[in-house]
């Protein structure tokens, strides 16, 4: 069952909580929907921007909080432009810290 696509006809990550690392340094966590010409579509997403002053947690601490307490959905739908989209990994891949290559 592991890795199974449970929504036939969609990409493997469809419906799965993912981390999208942005080229700008911003990071998104949300439920992957699809990749379109406009970008990667996430539902119920939250984001971390290291450039925003006053942020209490660094990226890894922020992701760890999403893992423990759940995704604090700030937006119902986010489209991340293709130029911004970097690596996409399952949120659970961060359970032991940043996955290799982060």
């Amino acid at each position, binding site marked *: 069952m*592991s890795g199974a696509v*449970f929504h036939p006809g969609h990409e493997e990550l469809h419906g799965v909580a993912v981390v999208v690392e942005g080229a700008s340094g911003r990071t998104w966590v949300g439920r992957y929907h699809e990749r379109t010409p406009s970008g990667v579509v996430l539902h119920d997403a939250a984001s971390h921007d290291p450039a925003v002053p006053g942020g209490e947690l660094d990226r890894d601490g922020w992701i760890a909080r999403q893992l423990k307490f759940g995704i604090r959905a700030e937006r119902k739908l986010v489209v991340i432009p293709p130029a911004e989209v970097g690596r996409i990994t399952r949120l659970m891949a961060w359970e032991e810290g940043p996955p290799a290559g982060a």
Partner: protein
Amino acid sequence: MPYSEMMVKPMREEVTRLGVQELRTVADVDAALGPGEGTALVFVNSICGCAAGMARPALTLALQHRVRPQHLYTVFAGQDLDAAARARSYFADYQPSSPSVALLRDGEVVHFVHRHMIEGRSPETIAAGLIAAFDKYCSKEGVAKSE
């Protein structure tokens, strides 16, 4: 918007046949969780595919373990809206997701399984995590299933 009750009924029964008490109203939830005594598992049921393929089978496996929480409850997200919202108020530090599982001891959340910890994992893996939590938090007061 809630789905047809006819469609949802088997999903409810897959859980209630395990001896899990379904809480369908706010009053049900408060009566069950309000006292906050002992250990209680709350299974947040859902119509989604990972509930059918992973979460409910995992719960079935986990509840075969000898050590279990004293109280077993379920609410159905997206169906019994008020009851699910009220149940979530008892673990309000945790973002709502479904399916999910909360394990409470004396009213405090001691273990939580979010949807993101369920999706893409086998029922056996999810059950193993629940069983480890049962052993850790329920071992002294847990209900032993008939041996």
